[in-house]
């Protein structure tokens, strides 16, 4: 019986010219989004790879100079896109794309896409994720808003019920018919995206992540199918049901995400760069606890070394004291940077938590967070990228300082030069993308919400009774 009902539903859609136009439009806009995103990612991949290569070449081709000066020449880290970002670029559009890495300071990530775009970016970035998260639910609404009350109005619902079909079965069939239809769009669309990004990224594609994405988007699709059918079943008037569904969509997909982000910022305000830099400077100058001035620290290190090596002056040490103190200073400033950046990351994580909890009122927030995390484009991936780049900065600066400490004599800043091959010994920056398991740890609640939404709506559907609604 269920299969008959499903077939009947599809037959009705096939006969409807409006549905044909809508389907065509959905396919067209989805393909445009896919092409646009692939072309953008491809351009990004090319330019960033080239920029990273150029930066490396510049590093290697610099003249032989004092290691600290060579460290000051610095390196650049360019954020490279991943294959799954062809599906969902997530936060990568709004975060800095490159950073200059040099001694003494952790520079800011600059040149975000949002700085280079027109204000139209505020309406969203055209990508397959935007289509599946924002537009697809709208199409589901258009396919379901009159699925039950329309049948009632025509009198066909009464006929069906008279034939012994239960109301729940009718609702289930309607939901399933819509879901199968949209799944038959979603699965090929995802596969096409995956194949094209696989080709684009030279075989770099995580199948587990792709499968997981397919599952969560399918559940998201089911949620909207259930919502559409349930509203259509519970609101007799077709006009009211479409208006109500559109309001739900606007509230959950447009208003709630903004409201949650703004509220999160109000609850956990992010400090400004000025406050950050001021805090770091104070920590370095006066000590992390505020009672350990920079000058005292240097004197203490010097004194301790003299005692340890039983010598009278730093010149008598078995290594270059200048290189040693340089690295000690780096280590201390790194601690200060860690202290203050941890606060920023923690604020951002708290803001995300607020949004996550508000996901209970918006499946859009839930799927958005899940999707961008899986595609390596979430907050945790951004923090991880910044951390990996910073670790690289520290390691190459340390390497150069150690060269100065171990190979140069005291007070030879103007004369000592690094040996040939030293620059090559510093490995190039390699950012390692995290595994799916690691990424999913930060979106456990979102997974729960997605299940809560779908199970609640299923329960609601199975508890729906015709006599309560159409009495």
């Amino acid at each position, binding site marked *: 019986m269920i299969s008959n009902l499903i077939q009947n539903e599809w037959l009705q859609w096939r006969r409807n010219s409006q549905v044909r136009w809508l389907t065509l439009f959905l396919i067209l806009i989805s393909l445009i989004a896919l092409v646009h995103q692939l072309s953008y990612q491809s351009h990004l991949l090319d330019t960033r790879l080239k920029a990273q290569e150029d930066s490396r070449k510049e590093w290697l081709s610099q003249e032989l100079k004092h290691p600290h000066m060579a460290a000051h020449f610095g390196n650049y880290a360019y954020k490279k896109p991943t294959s799954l970002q062809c599906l969902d670029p997530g936060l990568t559009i709004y975060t800095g794309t490159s950073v200059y890495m040099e001694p003494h300071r952790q520079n800011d990530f600059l040149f975000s896409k949002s700085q280079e775009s027109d204000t139209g970016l505020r309406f969203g970035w055209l990508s397959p994720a935007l289509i599946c998260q924002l537009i697809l639910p709208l199409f589901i609404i258009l396919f379901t808003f009159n699925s039950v009350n329309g049948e009632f109005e025509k009198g066909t619902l009464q006929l069906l019920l008279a034939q012994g079909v239960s109301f729940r079965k009718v609702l289930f069939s309607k939901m399933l018919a819509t879901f199968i239809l949209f799944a038959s769009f979603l699965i090929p669309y995802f596969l096409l995206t995956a194949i094209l990004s696989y080709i684009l990224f030279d075989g770099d594609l995580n199948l587990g992540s792709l499968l997981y994405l397919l599952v969560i988007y399918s559940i998201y699709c089911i949620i909207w199918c259930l919502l559409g059918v349930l509203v259509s079943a519970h609101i007799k*008037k077709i006009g009211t049901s479409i208006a109500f569904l559109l309001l739900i969509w606007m509230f959950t997909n447009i208003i709630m995400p903004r409201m949650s982000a703004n509220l999160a910022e109000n609850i956990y305000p992010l400090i400004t760069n000025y406050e950050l830099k001021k805090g770091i400077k104070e920590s370095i100058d006066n000590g992390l606890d505020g009672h350990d001035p920079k000058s005292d620290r240097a004197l203490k290190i010097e004194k301790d070394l003299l005692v340890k090596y039983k010598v009278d002056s730093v010149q008598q040490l078995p290594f270059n004291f200048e290189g040693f103190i340089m690295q000690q200073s780096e280590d201390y400033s790194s601690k200060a940077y860690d202290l203050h950046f941890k606060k920023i990351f923690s604020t951002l994580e708290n803001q995300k938590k607020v949004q996550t909890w508000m996901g209970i009122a918006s499946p859009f927030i839930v799927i958005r967070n899940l999707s961008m995390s899986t595609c390596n484009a979430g907050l945790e991936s951004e923090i991880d990228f910044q951390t990996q780049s910073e670790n690289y900065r520290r390691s190459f600066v340390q390497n150069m300082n150690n060269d100065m400490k171990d190979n140069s004599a005291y007070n030879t800043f103007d004369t000592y030069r690094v040996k040939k091959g030293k620059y090559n010994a510093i490995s190039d920056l390699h950012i390692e993308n995290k595994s799916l398991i690691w990424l999913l740890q930060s979106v456990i609640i979102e997974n729960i919400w997605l299940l809560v939404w779908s199970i609640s709506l299923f329960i609601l559907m199975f508890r729906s009774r015709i006599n309560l609604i159409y009495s």
Partner: protein
Amino acid sequence: MKNSNTVYSKISLKTQFWLFKKHSINSVILFAFLAVGMYGLYQGFVFKSKQIETIENFKTEKERDLAVLIRGFDADTTTAKGKEDYENVTGLLSSNRNITLPVFKTPSSTSLFCIGQADVFPYYYTVKVESFFMQLFKQGEIANPLRSLAGHFDTSFWIIYLLPLLIIILCFNSLSNELDNGNWRLINSQGISKKEWLKSKFLLVGLIIELMVVFIVVIGLIVNYCCFNQNPTINDFLFFVGANLYFVFWLSVVYCINSMGKTTSTNALYCGIMWTMTCIVIPTLSTALIEKIIPVDNTAISRMSRRPQGSKFDDPTYGIKLIKQFGKIYPEYKNANINPETNAFSFAVYLGYHRLLDDANTVKVKKYFENIEQRQELINSSCVVNPTAAIDGIFTSLASNDALANHSFVWQTKTLHDSLNAIYYPALFFDRTVTKKDYDAFPVFKYKNTASISITILVCYALMGLLSAFIFAMSNRMLRRI
């Protein structure tokens, strides 16, 4: 005939108001929308307050640091500390490190209503003598990608996304509801035509929304005056005009959908599709298209942050050549008289190189900025096909919170940097110390808001008005047919 029409309309407006009041849900909806509008204003206030507070603290600190540095002129040079302070303020190398001037972009009056891109651009910089772009592309503001992704909940959002929604909720079934309920015959029997009925309904809704917009804008202007000491500006007025034109456009769209004489569900469907197309699909599509038409690449620009270095700066032959080249471009330094054997010479060569590098980079940065500005210009002028994004772009532009305003801020900062160089370089190239007189002549930054009434804005407003008038006229013709 004309008089009788007017009489009918007046009667209908009164009736509409009575009908509107009768449904208590309408009052709830209006109250909710007004509350949301106030929340949007609050978000703008929070953002602006934070910016102003940061600017104040930043400015105070940098001015205090400079004052402390200048005190070095009066230091007792017989003591080690006094000698160090004196060297810090007068020495060429040390003063280069220590002279830091603050620049800041004060939020405009209209920025209370529209945050725009203010969250992605820095609004304060420190300026030193050395290469401008090297400093510029190291300074940014901490990005909050979570908020940028979701967007701001400001007055601009309320006007652009939510007011059309309110119009749709209140008007989508203005005629169809009466037709569906069978009330239309009764209304028509009183001599009221469909056009008059719709006209009165839309007039009423328009008036209500107008009152809400006026209320929010007036509250905003009062907040600006009381909390930020800012008087209303022409841009505030243009923002208000834009808001009105935009909601009139939406009234015309919903009026048009009503005039097609379709059922309530079809009207709801059309309104929903129209809203989605205008507020999401078309803006995202146009941004994607503009990305393709005007490509922007920052990889070359991003490497301007690297500090120039190398043994060439210690090479007298290279130094003399560079200083000669520098003198050709800047004739005031043609007769530079630094001894190539001194430290000041290699430092002059080094900073001369910075200056020449900046000159070369200015061209690249200008091109890079121009491309971004062209993208914005295209969006702002696309009001007929892309009214939502165009109005949003114009609002952001009026609030001086778009890329153009940021770029203007950057160039104003560069002008200050040039002025600072014009004071510091003579000391450097004529081998003397930096004097108290030099410090007194240091430029003080005053941000000039460049957002003004542009032709694009006026043309866009005129086109939007004409578009609305055209849709109304076309709808009235359709009404006659049904």
